[in-house]
């Protein structure tokens, strides 16, 4: 709703758009309580929002001074008539354009995710604060600055030029992936919130496939990746909210439907020449969808990580690659490779070293696990590492 109003009246009025939308919802709760929920609640909301928006801009001089010339200019350009509607198509268009506007390089990526959550996914400030493990004031400030930036940079709510789309799309995909990861790996215990983040990321991704210009192989690869990860969402958390490691997960809890969706998008991503990091990560995630512990599987994973690291280095990929090397080639060749990584402040690094030393040098293995435990950030992780130490004694 915010996206549609902003599209019509310009991104500089984004806060007014937000106010109108919350007023509309407030009115709805009051109104529906006394009169009952209308037959078509969505249409009701859209009609009220539209009336409120039009009357706001009429009431204010802004309408004559700024908005009308702006609208006239837009109409001359686009040749579309008085198109301020909440039609399905216009909602989709506006959301997609808002997504591209938010993903302007002028705003920091954390603020981009925040804005996407607030405006496109309708999350409350306290929910966003919880997802980021931050407080409401920080988030409010961050969003305020980002909106200021949208205004001062005069970002337009329209699709960037053809060649800009390709450049901007990488950032859009990145933000969607960060949004997803925020939900998937977030430290917050709120399961529903975390799932919502993942679902919203998937929704935005799928939305990009509905337009030819953004429906690129890498878009499909990213969706496939998110599907494969999501398929394990229920299996990786116990009833008590504890994290369950991959090896101990119950395959029965893996969501088969999401896996086959993932395969569908992975097939679509195979078109074209470009091999993006999303392609490689999606294929790795797909390998993990079969639990068989074969050398062939780990060999494939190893080679995918080799390729991934050549395109883009990350400590997590380096550690996973070395684990795959261990599974495919054995502990002995993997050990010197692991020693070279030198990720001395990363507890996963010492967990990996501990695993590799387990069959070669027990006391060294224990020393590594002890260091990992000292570096671990949560009690749950420390507990898992302690179990590994006890197993060696």
């Amino acid at each position: 709703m915010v996206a549609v109003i902003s599209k019509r009246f310009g991104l500089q009025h984004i806060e007014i758009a937000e106010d109108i939308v919350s007023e509309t919802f407030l009115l709805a709760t009051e109104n529906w309580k006394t009169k009952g929920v209308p037959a078509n609640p969505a249409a009701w909301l859209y009609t009220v929002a539209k009336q409120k928006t039009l009357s706001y801009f009429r009431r204010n001089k802004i309408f004559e001074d700024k908005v009308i010339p702006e609208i006239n200019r837009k109409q001359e350009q686009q040749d579309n008539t008085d198109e301020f509607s909440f039609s399905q198509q216009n909602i989709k268009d506006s959301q997609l354009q808002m997504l591209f506007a938010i993903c302007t390089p002028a705003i920091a990526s954390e603020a981009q995710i925040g804005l996407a959550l607030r405006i496109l996914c309708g999350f409350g400030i306290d929910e966003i604060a919880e997802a980021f493990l931050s407080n409401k004031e920080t988030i409010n400030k961050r969003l305020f600055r980002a909106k200021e930036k949208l205004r001062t940079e005069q970002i337009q709510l329209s699709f960037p030029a053809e060649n800009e789309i390709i450049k901007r799309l990488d950032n859009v995909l990145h933000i969607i992936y960060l949004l997803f990861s925020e939900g998937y790996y977030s430290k917050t215990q709120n399961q529903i919130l975390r799932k919502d983040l993942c679902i919203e990321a998937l929704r935005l991704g799928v939305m990009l496939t509905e337009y030819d210009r953004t429906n690129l192989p890498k878009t499909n690869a990213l969706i496939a990746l998110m599907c494969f990860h999501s398929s394990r969402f229920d299996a990786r958390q116990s009833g008590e909210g504890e994290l369950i490691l991959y090896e101990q997960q119950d395959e029965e809890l893996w969501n088969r439907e999401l896996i086959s969706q993932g395969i569908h998008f992975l097939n679509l991503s195979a078109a074209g020449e470009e091999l993006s990091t999303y392609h490689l990560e999606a294929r790795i995630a797909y390998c993990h969808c079969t639990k068989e512990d074969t050398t062939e599987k780990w060999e494939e994973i190893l080679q995918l990580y080799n390729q991934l690291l050549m395109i883009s280095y990350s400590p997590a990929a380096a550690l996973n690659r070395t684990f795959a090397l261990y599974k495919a080639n054995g502990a002995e060749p993997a050990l010197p490779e692991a020693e070279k990584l030198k990720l001395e402040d990363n507890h996963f690094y010492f967990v990996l070293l501990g695993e590799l030393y387990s069959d070669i040098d027990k006391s060294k293995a224990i020393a590594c696990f002890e260091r990992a435990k000292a570096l671990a950030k949560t009690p749950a992780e420390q507990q898992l590492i302690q179990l590994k130490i006890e197993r060696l004694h």
Partner: protein
Amino acid sequence: MKDFVFIFRQPSYDYSNSSAEEIAAINKKWNDWIGGIAAQGKFKSHGARLEVPGKVLKPGGVVTDGPFVEIRERLGGFIVVTADSLDEATTLAHGCPALEADGSVEIRPVFA
């Protein structure tokens, strides 16, 4: 951090009789070795991989065909890595599969 080029040279070898498994094993060695450099965050870019056939032009318009029997080591290709020093780059080059095949790695800083 500086950029360094690794230039791989290997004795000429006729791979046309090698089985698919042998070729795959050679590829794996190279991919694992380069993957190891990438896992340290020190891989920069691929140079072109060179095919075996080619020609050599010499002074006086003399053209010879490959496979370069008269050259002890032919150029196999190159990659670019990043390292703090020439010494560190040389350490990275250890374990290169070209060495197993009796070849060499030349390590050269990129002119900055």
